């Protein structure tokens, strides 16, 4: 008789999501959270909303030819997320990891709604994605987001600024208006999707301790790495 296969049940890990506008400090916090958990002996997997080659290449081409619409833009990102989910999120979750996501489906809910896509349609696209155990929303005023973005000297990209929507001719002005739309979407998602709101226009240390305070209850009884690889 072959040995019994490991039981394949639903997710056994923990899914922690960080959402917020650009420049809300969520990536910094995601990294610090990962370090903190790892140092305490938990197995952690970290993933970002970065576009894969498939999407960035397609977007580049689509932009050149002026082919991208809110619908194809939305579907492309859903495809990209599905790929990341099937490859990098689902397996570690089922293996019992703490998976930290710097942006998740909510980013798409906010962006696509800001571009005029039908929200229930967008939600349906992402129905394969499980509800996180904890979703942080790093809330900052639009002015803070803009200030940090400009200070970082990163070039503001065409789509980041929502230039495709024709909100303004100037990229900075467009960015500001588009972020304001996104903030409205996030603020409303915070209610419907039970976000844990972190007022993020504060010093890093204060935010850090707020984040840890929220994460601690998830760790109660959660096994550490050591106990799994040496039975």
């Amino acid at each position, binding site marked *: 008789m072959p040995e019994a296969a490991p039981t394949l049940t639903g997710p056994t890990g923990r899914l922690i999501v960080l959402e917020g506008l650009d420049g809300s400090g969520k990536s910094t916090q995601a990294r610090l959270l990962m370090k903190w958990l790892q140092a305490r002996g938990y197995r952690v997997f970290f993933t970002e909303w970065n576009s894969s080659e498939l999407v960035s290449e*397609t977007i580049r081409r689509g932009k050149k030819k002026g082919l991208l*619409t809110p619908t*194809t833009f939305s*579907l492309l990102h*859903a*495809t990209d997320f*599905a790929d990341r989910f099937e490859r990098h999120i689902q397996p570690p979750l089922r293996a019992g990891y703490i998976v930290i996501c710097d942006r998740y489906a909510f980013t798409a809910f906010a962006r696509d709604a800001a571009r005029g896509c039908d929200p229930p*349609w967008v939600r349906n696209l992402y129905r394969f994605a499980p509800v996180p155990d904890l979703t942080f929303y790093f809330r900052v005023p639009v002015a803070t987001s803009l200030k940090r973005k400009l200070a970082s000297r990163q070039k503001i990209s065409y789509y980041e600024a929502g230039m495709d929507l024709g909100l303004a001719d100037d990229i900075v002005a467009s960015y500001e208006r588009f972020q304001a739309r996104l903030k409205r979407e996030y603020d409303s998602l915070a209610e419907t999707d039970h976000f844990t709101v972190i007022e993020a226009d504060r010093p890093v240390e204060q935010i850090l301790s707020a984040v840890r305070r929220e994460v601690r209850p998830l760790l109660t009884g959660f096994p550490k790495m050591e106990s799994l690889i040496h039975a």
Partner: protein
Amino acid sequence: MRKTYGTRIPGFSREHLRGHLIVVEGADGSGRTTEVELLREWLEVQGHPVVDTGLRRSTLVSEQIDQAKQGHTLGTTTMALLYAVDFADQLENKILPSLAAGSTVLADRYIYTLMGRAVVRGASREWARKLYSFALEPDVTILLDARPEILLHRAIAKYGSLDYWESGMDLSLSRDRFESFFLYQRRMAEEFDWMSQEYGFVRTDANRPPNLVHRDVRRMVAPIFGARLAEIEGPAAEEPVPRAAPARTSARPG
């Protein structure tokens, strides 16, 4: 006014879509491509501008789809969504503008094949239906019904082998491709039965020779054009088919 299946497409007005959308669906080997060509010929002869469209013809992601199929590297949800990108691109950049220009759009397969494939691979019908709810409702969807045995022989006659994807080999239904082909086609047929009810397809027996099927197709399409079609019955049944099934040995099913 034309309708989508429930979800509006941002940035598009449906008011000016004057042309007709005709969809032909059916498995590989059901004679779909031949029927589309015959129909196109017939409509053009009567003076109707026709634009044809099919799956995997967008410039946006068709390359990525090809790559993914080669490498078998993408998961089923990812693949289903990638096909949806391709379809949406075709819809917005080809089908809608052509309809707005007053052309008849002839679609060699539409969302239904994509939905069937996704559902057979584990997606729920509800998910697939909502995913494609931004698609435009066709004026008519013609389903060419052919028995799996007929499909099998036509595939072998045409390609000399059974295609990996058309045999659903990725589903691991059977390691035997011949058996897998039957199991897969049966499952697809079940989905088409369901969609036929749900979306109101008109079906025709495609086990018969192309010219007989074509005669049915003309009857199905005629009501859309009403008095604007000179001849409905035509010489199709008696005369040999103008351009019979073209040999397409190089192209693989999509």
